[in-house]
């Protein structure tokens, strides 16, 4: 029996075979897509965790928690979390004032406002709520922080940055800059990923 004749008699013979390949390809693509999604979500959570920690370390006194965490005493650190006290906003206001860029009342206002802004933006990343707005704000904040520490270094100011509360007190300028740039790159990658996804959806 010729191939053409066989096909005309059993027209669906080839169809399952033809369908298997695209289905298999779609499954592989789905797995890849899921893996890629997991990766981006992990990046979301890591960056959000950093900003939540940064914000909380300015609002609450995390010294005891950090000391216990550094000694790997997790139970004690959890115990400390129950007895958290509010940190003095004056410390962070002094940290901002040290940059000698803003008048004191503005430093005080920012000392109250910035930690909450960081936390709300981080929550935006975690819950994907106002996601791109949160990313935009965080990128702007990181740009401003990076410019401020660079300007301070250029002006020869001996500055203690309160970026991560007492945890970042003894960071050198290069480690500050490297941390800021790493965070900034992560945020930019997430932003462009989110923007390209949104464009793709619009196009579809």
């Amino acid at each position, binding site marked *: 029996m010729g191939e053409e004749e066989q096909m005309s008699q059993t027209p669906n013979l080839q169809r399952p075979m033809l369908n298997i390949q695209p289905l298999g390809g779609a499954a592989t693509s789905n797995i890849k897509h899921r893996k890629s999604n997991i990766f981006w979500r992990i990046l979301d959570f890591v960056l959000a965790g950093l900003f939540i920690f940064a914000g909380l370390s300015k609002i609450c006194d995390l010294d005891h928690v950090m000391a216990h965490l550094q000694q790997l005493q997790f139970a004690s650190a959890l115990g400390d979390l129950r007895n958290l006290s509010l940190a003095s906003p004056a410390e962070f206001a002094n940290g901002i004032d040290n940059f000698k860029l803003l008048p004191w009342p503005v430093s005080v206002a920012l000392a109250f406002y910035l930690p909450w802004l960081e936390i709300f933006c981080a929550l935006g990343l975690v819950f994907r709520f*106002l996601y791109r*707005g*949160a990313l935009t704000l965080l990128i702007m904040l990181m740009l401003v922080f990076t410019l401020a520490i660079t300007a301070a270094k250029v002006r020869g100011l001996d500055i*203690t940055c309160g970026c991560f509360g007492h945890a970042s*007190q003894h960071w050198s300028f290069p480690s500050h800059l490297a941390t800021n740039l790493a965070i900034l790159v992560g945020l930019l990658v997430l932003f462009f990923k989110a923007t390209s996804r949104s464009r793709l959806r619009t196009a579809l």
Partner: protein
Amino acid sequence: MKFLLVRQAAIIAALALLPAAGEAIYFRDKISWRSSIAPGEMVTVDQAGGWGDTAIWVDARPDDEFASDHVPGAISLNEDRWNELLPQFLAGWSPGKKVIVYCSSLSCNASREVAHRLRKEAQLSDVFVLEGGWEAWVKKNR
């Protein structure tokens, strides 16, 4: 697209204002909106000089800067070696003595941190921060 970003960012910025305002109200008596340090916690070089032997000088700068030069009689107490240096400082301190903490210049923060920790952890009351730090002291005395 741009409008959406601005709108989202504005919503988050506005949401963050609420707890910030609450915190500002809660701390209204604990922080001054006019000056960075409460006037009673600062001391000028002239005032500190007038206290003579009734005051102890504390150098909050890093070890190498203390080693290169310091106020005569000053005790080194910095945050890098806090646990090691605090007992040495307390051995030299006696009740009733004022403590003057200084760091390198007007812009440094180490003296404020050390003064804060002395008040909080060592429960000392008469702790002052030298206005202008080491730079101001050198200008007046050298």
